[in-house]
């Protein structure tokens, strides 16, 4: 097993109110596509109950930045009681969702991604030394890269969800739920 270090531990974002779930998912996947990452969706659960939908999504996109380092993101989206609502804006009906959301983001750095340095104890030892002293600068750059990506995604998520909140506050989206 390659060495995996946890760098970002559970950055959370909770939201309750009106949002666009399809748009949110689209934004997250598009984000990684634009950044040139590979995409993995480990789990996608959707349960329909009388009180609304419950969703549980676990994404694990990753990016191979060098032959040695790999950035792994883990995004968990938990939604409860999500109902479809239609809001009226300038005479047009917009299909949106109403419910609770919780998004948790973790970030990891994997070193020795081809698992080349672990077949013998001596190789393992040299890898630990190299990670700690020789590749320290590279590791710090990878860490910076991961943190900036997660920061960027977190800000985009916040502003995406706040669009609905602030537009509702400003009265752009009326509070009248049609269905």
């Amino acid at each position, binding site marked *: 097993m390659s060495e995996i270090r946890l760098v970002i531990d559970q950055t959370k974002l909770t939201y309750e109110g009106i949002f666009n779930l399809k748009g949110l998912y689209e934004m997250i996947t598009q984000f990684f596509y634009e950044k040139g990452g590979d*995409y993995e969706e480990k*789990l*996608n659960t959707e349960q329909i109950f009388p009180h609304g939908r419950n*969703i549980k999504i676990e994404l694990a996109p990753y990016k191979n930045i060098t032959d040695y380092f790999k950035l792994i993101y883990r995004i968990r989206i938990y939604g409860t009681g999500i109902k479809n609502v239609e809001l009226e804006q300038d005479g047009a009906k917009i299909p949106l969702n109403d419910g609770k959301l919780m998004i948790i983001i973790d970030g990891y750095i994997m070193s020795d991604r081809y698992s080349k340095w672990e077949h013998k104890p001596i190789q393992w030892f040299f890898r630990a030394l190299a990670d700690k002293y020789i590749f320290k600068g590279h590791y710090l750059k990878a860490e910076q890269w991961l943190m900036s990506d997660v920061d960027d995604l977190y800000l985009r998520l916040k502003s995406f969800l706040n669009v609905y909140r602030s537009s509702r506050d400003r009265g752009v989206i009326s509070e009248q739920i049609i269905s």
Partner: protein
Amino acid sequence: MGVEKEMTVPVGLIRYRGLFDWGGLYYHISDWFKRYRYTLTEEMYKHKVPTPFGAEQELEWYGDSEVNEWVKFRIYVHFHLWDMTEIEVVKDGKKKLLTNARIEINIWGRLTFDWQKKFDKNRFTRALRDLYIGYIWRRESSSVYGDMIYYRMLGLHAHIKKYLDLQTKYHAYKGYLGEER
């Protein structure tokens, strides 16, 4: 450690609970395999005696595609359904039989190199094969063919999500391989 002749590529798990058209889903997935020219095999079909909550079904499919004389793809789809009950719904004036159940769909794939076993004749040819897969052709095996099977399966994953009308049916990596049919 020997060189692996096969590579398993997992994609993801879809779980859904609610009303859906099981017959339609069955048809759509088999149609997807047909469209990409995979020979589909239904390896297992289990139907358990229904309980008061409903029936339980388990299916396992795989589709084979010989990419070239060296590489072969196999895509596995495993279905598991619980608490299956059939409900008659009237849509646009027509009666339709839908299924209310919990469904779990797991997709994964397998890449096989030297599937014709041309290099399996003696120890020397096997060593040549290991050298080819392990060193000369190592990058191509994971980046070219590994990516190809992965993103094709991701397409199937998105296809199923779209059919079940999940909220997350958007597929950002559509067109990644430039071969969507």
